[in-house]
């Protein structure tokens, strides 16, 4: 069900629907294990990931990617209602998420050699950290205000 705010018809911004909420939830649920394994091993100095940690990281990544895609498809038309800060974080988050996904999947293809692979590895790491920060900031920007 979609609700709208009491604005003129031309400025009506739909409220968050079920798909949007589901998408954000899926993104968060996917990102939690991905961040815990990826950023966790980095912070603990246990890089590179291996064994179960790596499998958990890779295994949770499709949920994250699907969630982020749902967010990308359902949120933009509604995001404007949360203010410019939130809007700013949202698009940065989306951009960082795209980089995370691409830098995660491109190494699985024979497109890049060792240097490119290493660059992607570092890009994946730091875009992942950036994404985590942006998610937190975005969530913070969505908090109820007086």
């Amino acid at each position: 069900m979609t609700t709208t705010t009491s604005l003129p018809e031309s400025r009506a911004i739909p409220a968050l629907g079920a798909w949007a909420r589901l998408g954000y939830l899926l993104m968060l649920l996917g990102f939690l294990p991905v961040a815990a394994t990826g950023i966790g091993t980095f912070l603990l100095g246990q890089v590179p990931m291996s064994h179960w940690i790596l499998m958990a990281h890779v295994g949770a990544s499709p949920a994250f990617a699907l969630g982020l895609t749902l967010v990308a498809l359902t949120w933009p038309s509604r995001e404007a209602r949360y203010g410019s800060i939130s809007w700013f974080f949202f698009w940065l988050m989306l951009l960082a998420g795209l980089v995370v996904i691409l830098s995660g999947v491109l190494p699985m293809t024979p497109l890049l050699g060792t240097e490119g692979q290493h660059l992607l590895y570092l890009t994946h790491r730091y875009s992942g950290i950036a994404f985590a920060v942006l998610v937190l900031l975005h969530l913070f920007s969505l908090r109820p205000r007086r």
Partner: protein
Amino acid sequence: MSVGPFLPAPTLCARLVEGSLQTLFPLLLGLVLVWGPQAPAAENLGTESRMPYRHVIPLRDHNGDMITPPAAFDEQGKPQEPRGSPYSTARTCGKCHDYPSISQGWHFNAANEGVPAGRPGEPWILTDPATRTQLPLSYRGWEGTFRPPDVGMSDYDFLVAFARHYPGGGVGEPPKERMGTNDVRMRRMQITGALEIDCLICHNRHGDYDHEARYKAVLSENFKWAPTIASELGVYGASRTAKAFADAWRPPRPAATNLPPIKYERHRFDSGNHVTFDVTSKAASESCYYCHTSESHLGDSRWHADGDVHIRAGMSCVDCHRNGIDHQIVRGYEGETKDRPIRAEAITLRAKLLLRDDPALTETDALRFAESRLMEDLGKVETLSCAGCHYGSTDGQSAGRLGAPLPHHAGLPPIHFEILTCTACHSGPVPGNATEIVHTSLAHKLGLPAPIRGENTAPAIVQSVFLRDGNGKIAPHKMVWPSYWGVLSNTVVTPLLPDVVAKAAGDKLPTQANADVERDPYNTRPLTDAQIRDVLGALAPGRTNGEPVFLAAGKLYRVSGGELQSEEHAAARPYAWALGHDVRPASQSVGGVKGCADCHADDSPIYFGTVAARGPVDPKSGVTKDHLELRGDDRTVVSTFAFTFKFRPMLKVITFGCAVLILGVLLGRGLVFLSGTRSTPGRGIKQEPLS
């Protein structure tokens, strides 16, 4: 270490020890040996040119005297034979090349004190088909090998057994006082002479070095004569061998003085009695292959073996495996520099050169600079490993050395470089579901004529076994399971040498029927349980130092309650050493054929391939494991990881699809933003919390 040649000084000794002085012979001999002439450290001479120097040089005997064959006819016109003492490499080559430094080289220093053992390498394997013994030996103390003295094998016996492929020096030139001791084996060297480093084994340019002649010389214990005979400078001037002289010698009687001379080939000497040696500092690969051939395509390799890509490209072994005058040859593994301490002599020598170039330097500064320069040189060792040439050293320099192409490794995540050596994917045979038998020069006497060797020719060595190396990386290895009779005491097994076993076991050891010898020249028939039990029974009587046992194919056999029992035992564990060659082309590398599935599949050889222990017992009774088990990997993890690769294509589709959609949204919003029609947040819109 003293490296001077053995000096028998027979005539002097013979005069001194007549009559009652005979009992003082060993002492006097010892004094003569200690104070006798030694090979002095030469100042290394060089031409500093890339053009090889033509070595037209005098031969020198073990006293340092020039060898001058008598004229073809004496004053009365009577023919004279060109007889003389065998030539000494220490005296001849050592005249211009620092023999003491050379003798510190990797090929000669195994028994020297304080030499780092380095990465485990190929052992010498004492092989005796009759007793089914295959015992890995090494003076370096590599775990899983035995030091020859620890199993009752003297240095002398070691030489007789292995000098066919041992280049001399080291244990071949023991300190002189050891030759004069009561060690009945070592003192034979007073007759046989020392086994000096034979420079021509490696440095002969055209391969006209007769390894077979050297092998026969060593078997005859003609140590001192071996370099001359093998270089085809002459032949024996008498038929009696040093072994015969040594066998007949009964100390304290003086050692024989009528040892066979060399009958030199007169045409090898010019008018000034100089001999031309066609030698090169850059040893030919064929020379290396005499000792370092590995052959797994048994029977007829010509259809299967392509050799190493580097050799095919025109390189030679010593392009990478380099050394200086100290002969500390680069072995080429990662982390090798830590195993190459800089010797004080090397610092002193370098400091001497620095002082010569800059007399203003103080000696202290010269030593300091010398050490610094040598450290820089040591850094170059790193650039001669696989990664060093192809990727460059850690400072990013030296990549492309020797024209090495920069590997692309498309699609290979960098984590692989942290868990795999280069050789894991590129060296040895293409991994299969089972290991394969490999023959090596050192173990199977390759390079010497013999009946065609087969799958079961002892010792049984297999490749490639993927184990972790000292750096924790997976690397291909060769592997041999020790097989020997021994005495078990407090979980430690002490091997018994073959002759001890043969003597004690008598007819309990199966003898090969004469009719079978032609069909099976290597006596490869495995022992049956009954035969093992009988031999163990024969070894038991009178033995108080422990329980007789037999080890083979990863198991320890013992008799308990009259029955033969077998169990896995630490002493029966295999010994493994990393293999580096032959290097395959990139298109035949692991990962270059089926991509990720070469390793990440539930039938991947490097994880799930079978490694069956080989030995002189029923093949079914040996220990069989797979590579991951030998490495101590977690089977569940490995299997699960391989299983996840079945979903890898789906993962790629999902994530790429998601990326395309997100990219589309971002581009769409970007276009809207650029067109200036975006909805502006916060203007007249009620902000809502996410609920």
